[in-house]
């Protein structure tokens, strides 16, 4: 929202990009690279979920949109033999279209109704992939043997995308693109309009903001990015099943975003990385993992209802009384 905020976000973005790009250099442990790959993929999902939640829309169909990206891309690659680089935009576009349709269906609803309807849509999409068009989507078994992304070729030079490390750099590239778009959105005039819609839809309309259009756009963009994550998920794992896109991964994602903080751009990043690393350390304790997960969630919600980043913001603001953030049009 603020120019200094944008500058800070760009610095954070560059630092994170650098840190992420040296992960496979620092560690040769392929398991760790695998974990980092999942984190980056979850980051795309969590950050794109956050922009929608930041408009006051709790979209429980977010992982379903990811599922559409995954299934459409996998089916096109397996049934029609299409290249990954062709299925990627088609499948992500399909997820964006689904998000748009979902928005048109539900956006005049508010509060719990939007949330309940997206829940219903999520169940329907999961059921669809589970039980219908079995010859295309594999039914209850799902799709097995989704091909790896086709090698990237520039003339005589080709880059195979088969090894874990190369897949890691592929998702890193996707994350960089997604984060760049979302940062642009956050600090653009459109982002300011979204912030106004979040504050009060009635007032936003009274000053002429086309609130529905604004929400549809953000929802579609969010769906597109979820679709990209889904495409990567399908082709990097090689196996997908409708349960990969059900309520469990959705709740996990929701916890990442809420615990990290919805109102701050970096909230979902803090939540996703924090929880992912924590659950890796707790993995050896099996049942304790879920227990600790719940305990952390309760603790954070009790102590910082606005999430970890929200609490940090509050502490910083209190430490500098009278200080006010500078502004979008500061340079004008």
């Amino acid at each position, binding site marked *: *929202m603020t*120019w200094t905020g944008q500058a800070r976000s760009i610095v954070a973005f560059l630092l994170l990009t650098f840190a992420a790009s040296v992960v496979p250099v620092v560690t040769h442990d392929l398991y760790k690279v695998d974990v980092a790959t999942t984190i980056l993929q979850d980051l795309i999902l969590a950050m794109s979920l956050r922009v929608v939640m930041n408009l006051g829309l709790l979209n429980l169909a977010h992982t379903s949109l990811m599922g559409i990206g995954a299934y459409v891309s996998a089916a096109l690659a397996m049934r029609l033999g299409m290249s990954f680089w062709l299925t990627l935009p088609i499948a992500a576009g399909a997820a964006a279209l689904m998000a748009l349709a979902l928005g048109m269906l539900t956006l005049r609803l508010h509060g719990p109704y939007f949330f309940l309807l997206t829940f219903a849509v999520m169940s329907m999409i999961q059921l669809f992939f589970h039980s219908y068009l079995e010859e295309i989507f594999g039914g209850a078994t799902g799709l097995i043997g989704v091909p790896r992304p086709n090698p990237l070729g520039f003339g005589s030079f080709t880059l195979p995308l088969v090894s874990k490390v190369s897949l890691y750099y592929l998702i890193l590239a996707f994350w960089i693109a997604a984060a760049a778009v979302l940062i*642009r*959105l956050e*600090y*653009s*005039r*459109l982002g*300011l*309009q979204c*912030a*106004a819609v979040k*504050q*009060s839809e*009635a*007032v*936003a*309309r*009274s*000053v*002429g*903001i*086309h*609130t529905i*259009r604004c929400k549809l*756009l953000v929802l579609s963009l969010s769906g597109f990015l979820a679709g990209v994550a889904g495409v990567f998920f399908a082709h990097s794992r090689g196996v997908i099943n409708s349960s990969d896109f059900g309520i469990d991964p959705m709740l996990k994602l929701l916890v990442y975003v809420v615990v990290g903080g919805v109102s701050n751009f970096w909230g979902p990043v803090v939540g996703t990385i924090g929880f992912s690393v924590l659950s890796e350390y707790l993995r050896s304790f099996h049942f304790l993992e879920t227990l600790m997960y719940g305990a952390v969630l309760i603790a954070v919600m009790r102590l910082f209802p606005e999430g970890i980043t929200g609490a940090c913001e509050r502490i910083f603001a209190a430490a500098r009384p009278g200080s*006010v*953030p*500078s*502004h*979008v*049009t*500061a*340079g*004008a």
Partner: protein
Amino acid sequence: MSLLALENVTHFFGGLAAVRNLSFTVESGAIRGLIGPNGSGKSTVFNIISGYVPLSSGRVRFESRDITNRSTPSLVDLGIARTFQATQIFDALTVEENVTVSSQVIHRESLARSFLRTTVLDRDETHLSARAEEILDLVGLSGAARRIARDLPYRDQKMLALANAMATDAKLLMLDEPMAGLTMQETRAAMAVVRWARDKGTTILLIEHDMRCIMELCDSIVVLDHGEKICDGSPNEVRRNPQVVEIYLGADECSR
């Protein structure tokens, strides 16, 4: 030619007619008052014109165009802006952000442009900011441009709501009790802002309970009671109308 015309407008809340068969016009460049006791339907009239509640029957015309039941944002695009009785601003945004996001310059640009344009190094932004500054200066908020809106004192929040409505570049500005809760001195300042807007060519429709202020500001006044128009005329005519004196002014004078 009248800027705004209501023709036999009726609105029902369930079985209750909040506004019944109401017709009046607002002439271009005028300050028009809309008064009546509490519950007489004034705010409902505002909600109808600004597209917040649908009409049960009747028509609303703006610049002789039929605008009945159009959406609020599209009405703002046409040039109709409003404030609310309970002050409504974007609490968590700064004063400057409030005015910026309310500005028509932003709404008229394409979504792609508003997404791609950097917010700072942009020539339009200079223009926008100059306009925002002029408005903020006028309502006495230029010194508070970087403050978060919710931290402002009550008076300033009211002024910010007024500034937001003005930033939309409206031809018709509908103000719902802009003076409510202000001190005498603050009311004077608010009145000066309303006059300034009118002198800039903005037409004003004003709901206000402060009779002195209404009588002083308005060129003509519509009086509502139980959702029906009981009087329409100059401040002097309204003051002398026995029905108005009985149901409204009389009671108001007695309570003072």
